[in-house]
């Protein structure tokens, strides 16, 4: 088993409260399913939209990330899967895909010392 992160991008900001509620229920069901199958190492957190970007040697601080809403990371989780393909398979049922968002699947580097 290896560890992966799921980075969730793109939140649906125009949803009505009813739609949001449905979306939330889908997320909870999805997390529950992942957890029961032993794939959820850490459920992670949703992230605020607003933040700062610190850049360069000058440590310049700007408001940001100021990417398109669809590109902003809205949350993350830690996942356990056999390999990258398996992790990708797991991500395919993520509710964010139903609202036009994306999941970035990245393996966590492990260096055995």
């Amino acid at each position, binding site marked *: 088993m290896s560890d992966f992160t799921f980075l969730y991008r793109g*939140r649906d*900001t125009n*949803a*009505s*409260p*009813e739609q*949001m*509620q449905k*979306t*939330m229920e889908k*997320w*909870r069901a999805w*997390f529950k399913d992942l957890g029961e199958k032993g794939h959820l190492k850490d*459920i*992670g*957190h*949703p992230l*605020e939209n607003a933040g700062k970007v610190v850049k360069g040697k000058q440590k310049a601080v700007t408001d940001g990330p100021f990417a398109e809403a669809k590109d902003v990371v*809205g*949350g993350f989780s830690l996942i356990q899967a056999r390999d990258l393909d398996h992790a990708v398979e797991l991500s395919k049922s993520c509710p964010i895909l139903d609202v036009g968002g994306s999941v970035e699947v990245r393996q966590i580097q492990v260096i055995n010392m």
Partner: protein
Amino acid sequence: MVAVLTRLFGVHNLALAEDVVQDAFCRALEVWAFRGVPENPSAWLMAAAKNRALDVLRRERTIRTYEPELTRFLGSEWTLAPVVQEMFTENSIKDDQLRMMFSCCHPRLPEEAQVMLILHILCGFGVDEVASAFVTTYTAVEKRIPRAKKVLAGSKRLFDTQAPSDFATRLPAVQRALYLLFNEGYHGASAEFAVRADLCEEAMRLAALLLGHPLGATPATYALSALMCLNKARLPARLDASGKLNSLFDQDRSLWDQKLVREGLQLLDLSANGSELSEYHVEAGIAAVHASAPSAQSTNWEEIVSLYNTLMTIRPTPIVALNRAIAIGQLDGPKRGLEALRRIADAERLARYPFYEAAFGEFELQSGRTQLAHQHFSAALALSRNPFERQFFGQRIAACGV
């Protein structure tokens, strides 16, 4: 929440207040998806909205103007947080809801739009829910609500509930709006539900707020609350377990909520203070006579007819006349009932109301003219607005036995 935030931002920033609430709600749901729903979601949401409000006020305090009397507090970081904190205490929230209720009953808005605004802003009904409560289309409500909000935003400031003369002037409109809201739930022509108890409960909650205000607790408000309690008490019997609609005459009266009946009678007592006799007094009186009768037969119909006569002098509408005719039929027999029905002025306004035809049907049936009764019930069936009414009139047709 919108009411509290509008108090903070000023009524001209109503849209901003709504955005903040929407935003807080969306964020809350995201966090709940990850962390689970907290034990007290509404308190959690309030806190989230409060934090959002602080963010907005800090970020935009130079760009926007807020509620004039609050601006000087909101301008300084020293006073900003305590003022916002104060706004979100329970008493403040009640005041703000009352203020918003009065603001929604703006004289430039038609009654229906006032009720829609109250439902939307104070009861948190979405556009689709308001549309279903009013049996109208989503697009119609979608157009009306922003138009009404514009009127509200144009009034520059929220209604001042501390000014006695303004309060007294607008109170009847507020009472009327709550009355309509309650009736919409009780007799609503909803396509899916025979009764919308949620609308009745919202109306009762807001009426209780009104009673809690020293200027709002007038005899008419007591009467209005009494009327709501006494009618609400009958709801469990109006719709039986299978969802079947029962008329007052064949309801299982043991299902009536006796606690609400007692509460209603008590409120009615409190309303008899002063010389004012409002339509709510009379209607509550009628509901009290029904609530105190062990059966339809033993009802004091004489009292009811006389109350309807009084009501006709205050509010002479065809619906009141129809109910009066039905009561006359109970008191003096179907022949007199039919005469009263035929004498209703403006009866054409009842042309699409199924219970008008049904009233003719009942009296014809009682007179033994089953053929005629059958025709009237069939006409009522054709006008029925939901499956419950259809089932009800279907049974009346079957009762004619032709």
